[in-house]
């Protein structure tokens, strides 16, 4: 077996098949990165999986999952101004959480260097939007590199780290979902471990680090001046790539993953435009772009999501009075979705139908297949909780969702959680819904990891401003949705056993007076508690607790002597009321063509949470 951890620390040069999220960890090792922080979120958690593959006593850097993205960025910044090369990574929307610190970074002299790694999600594969985080670089004057494949992830991280160390300014490495997860053979350089320097080098003399009036303008000026040197740096560091197809008429400027889609499409094109692939998403490299504009009659800007590149390029052409025809986005659809080869073909065909053919029509023989939305896992405590809580509430009551596995409760047949915005928002959104509202009870849901992430301010506010709602804290002991990372109440962090910060004690400490708790499997009891809680004046909390059964079952399977368990349905008793399917809706229950209901033993874990819900007691173990 090949061990990822051994590979990541190998000293001679080598090549291996890796995903982008693994390649970046080798780059961290080679660059001498000392502190890495993160909050889990797709498409980036596998970076931590690769980090974990290196035994902690051999790991040349410190790593933590912080309580949220803002905290993670602050820890990385603190390490950076103390002289340690640092890196923080998280998903696209994580930057909204971290924005308050992010926009200050360019005003600081980060003597150790700092790389901010973003996992953007064009196509919203696993996010609540497909926001284009290139905007944040424009907002904060922080340079941004954009790799297109695992090889570039590796190479660009090393370049970004070197640039940041040399300039004392942060650099962003913007990856996207299918750059993070793409796998291919990557060649890695040799690595000679340097002796680790733990010297704390922080001194205010490297600052000023207090960005108040007197220092803001010079610092901003320095950040803006720095951008000019970054353009030159990129030109002399192989960050951009020009493909000369000998086409003086047509050219394409693109970047990132869309470049690869473009290359695929051009394999069969009747005419191949020249290509300029930008590795720098911000700032737009003026000299390189102008040279390309001047040597072509028509230039198409092929740009995923928003039109930052297009606007920058058009402005350059306008200022320089270049008479090139620049084709940017042509309709709303160009702003939406991932630029896959199919999408790129469609976009190019709209502008240049003579060069790029349309995609042939798909086969018309396509029988319908029922949709398969993601489901709560068999045995999930959230299922029991939603099934019970739905019974405790009136149809007109309002339920507010939050981010996590329990978001899936919005689906049939539970329909629990009718509005969702972002991490930790449920209590405060619920507070707003409760104003002037005497007739409809408001119930908010929140997971335990999210409670620590961004949930607490909303709770404090509900107490402080005396809002009238019930919060159901769905406590499963882990950050389940993103792959079971520990959180502050888990009793373990990434590296060590640690004191738990129990959710209940935290709530008590904040001053929540009405706290109820129960194992989510105890549905009758949960229904009673909900009746009590929603009747209480003011803010009440129900902790519906059950460990994540996906994680529990995985752990059980690793133990010797593990025996798979499952429930069975006594067909002599079953009257086909189908509450197990239509009300409780565990995916293990299968409806057969003769109307009978059986258990899919490949799926059932034998937890028995369904047994209490059969009206004729036909389910047993």
């Amino acid at each position, binding site marked *: *077996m*090949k061990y990822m951890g051994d590979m990541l620390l190998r000293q001679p040069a080598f090549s291996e*098949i890796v995903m982008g999220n693994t390649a970046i960890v080798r780059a961290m090792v080679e660059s001498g990165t000392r502190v890495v922080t993160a909050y889990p979120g*797709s*498409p980036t958690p*596998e970076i931590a999986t690769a980090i974990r593959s290196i035994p902690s006593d051999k790991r040349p850097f410190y790593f933590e999952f912080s309580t949220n993205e803002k905290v993670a960025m602050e820890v990385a910044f603190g390490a950076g101004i103390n002289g340690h090369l640092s890196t923080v990574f998280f998903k696209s929307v994580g930057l909204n959480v971290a924005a308050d610190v992010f926009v200050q970074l360019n005003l600081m002299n980060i003597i150790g260097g700092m790389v901010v790694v973003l996992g953007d999600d064009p196509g919203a*594969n*696993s996010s609540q939007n497909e926001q284009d985080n290139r905007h944040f670089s424009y907002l904060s004057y922080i340079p941004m590199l954009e790799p297109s494949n695992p090889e570039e992830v590796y190479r660009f991280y090393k370049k970004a780290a070197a640039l940041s160390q040399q300039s004392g300014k942060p650099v962003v490495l913007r990856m996207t979902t*299918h750059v993070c*997860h*793409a*796998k*291919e*053979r990557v060649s890695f350089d040799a690595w000679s471990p340097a002796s680790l320097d733990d010297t704390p080098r922080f001194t205010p003399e490297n600052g000023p680090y207090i960005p108040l009036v007197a220092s803001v303008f010079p610092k901003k000026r320095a950040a803006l001046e720095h951008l000019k040197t970054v353009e030159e740096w990129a030109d002399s560091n192989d960050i951009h790539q020009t493909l000369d197809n000998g086409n003086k008429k047509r050219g394409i400027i693109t970047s990132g*993953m869309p470049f*690869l*889609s473009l*290359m*695929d499409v051009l*394999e069969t094109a009747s005419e191949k435009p020249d290509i300029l692939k930008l590795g720098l998403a911000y700032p737009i490299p003026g000299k390189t772009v102008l040279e390309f504009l001047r040597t072509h009659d028509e230039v198409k800007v092929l740009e995923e999501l928003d039109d930052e590149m297009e606007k920058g390029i058009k402005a350059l052409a306008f200022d320089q009075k270049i008479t090139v025809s620049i084709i940017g986005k042509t309709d709303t659809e160009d702003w939406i979705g991932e630029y*896959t*080869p*199919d999408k790129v*073909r469609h976009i190019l065909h709209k502008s240049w139908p003579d060069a790029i053919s349309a*995609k*042939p029509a*798909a*086969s018309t*023989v*396509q*029988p*319908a*297949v*029922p*949709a*398969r*939305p*993601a*489901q*709560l*896992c068999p045995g999930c405590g959230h299922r029991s909780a939603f099934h019970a809580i739905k019974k405790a509430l009136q149809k007109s009551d309002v339920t507010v969702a939050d981010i996590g596995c329990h978001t*899936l409760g919005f*689906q*049939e*047949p539970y329909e629990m959680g009718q509005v969702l915005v972002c991490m930790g928002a449920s209590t405060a959104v619920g507070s707003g819904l409760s104003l002037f509202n005497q007739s409809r009870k408001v119930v908010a849901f929140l997971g335990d990891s999210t409670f620590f992430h961004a949930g607490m301010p909303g709770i404090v506010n509900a107490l402080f401003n005396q809002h009238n709602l019930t919060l159901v804290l769905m406590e499963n002991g882990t950050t389940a*949705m*993103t792959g079971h990372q520990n959180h502050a109440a888990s009793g373990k962090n990434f590296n060590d056993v640690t004191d738990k910060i129990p959710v209940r004690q935290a709530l008590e400490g904040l001053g929540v007076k009405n706290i109820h708790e129960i194992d989510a499997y105890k549905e009758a009891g949960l229904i009673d508690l909900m009746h009590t809680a929603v009747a209480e004046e003011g803010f009440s909390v129900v902790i519906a607790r059950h460990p994540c059964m*996906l994680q529990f079952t995985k752990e059980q399977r690793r133990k010797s002597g593990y025996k798979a368990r499952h429930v069975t349905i006594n067909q002599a008793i079953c009257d086909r009321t189908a509450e197990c*399917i*239509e009300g409780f*809706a565990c*995916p293990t*229950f*299968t*409806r057969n*063509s003769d109307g009978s209901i059986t258990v*899919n*033993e*490949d*799926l059932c874990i034998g937890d028995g949470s369904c047994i209490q819900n059969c009206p004729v007691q036909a389910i047993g173990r």
Partner: protein
Amino acid sequence: MKSQNIYLTGVGGQGIGLISEILLRAADHADLRVKSVDTHGLAQRGGIVVSQIRIGESVHTPIIPEGEADLVVSLERHEALRGMNLMLADGGTLAYYDTVWQPLETRLNRVEETSEALLEETCAARNIKLIKVFQQELTDPRTQNVVVLAEIDRQGLVPGVRTEHYKQAMDDLMQGSMLADNLQLFDHQQLPA
């Protein structure tokens, strides 16, 4: 050599990730230029899991254009039809493990379960080679992926990749009893029925 596009699909928990990684590494052991990409995230919660593998000198992205897969591999019957509809080229090959994890709408009695007959008819209409894999006496359902892998090898569905390459790939990824059990199952499937 013509490039080869392989689209793998199934339901979260069926082991698409492992079979995909074995195919990827086997192609690499066969000295083919190969790229792949998996979908992560929500897939684990009973949703659809997809992995795409592309082999060839002129392949740039791991993402297969719709309707251009040469081979669709599915570990579940509904996903076989869905994958075939979206991705498989006419005249291609569908290899699937014939188990059913009913989608919500089927359980709720709103949409009929996809039948074997429907798959057969659709494949016939589109000149698609249909390979149904099923192994009655399998003790652990999580090894269905290796049964399918053995069939991919036995029928030579990935040109240029041979038995030893699959075994090398399995050796890269597993060890101890897990490796031994999977290799034994893989070998056993190669025997004439």
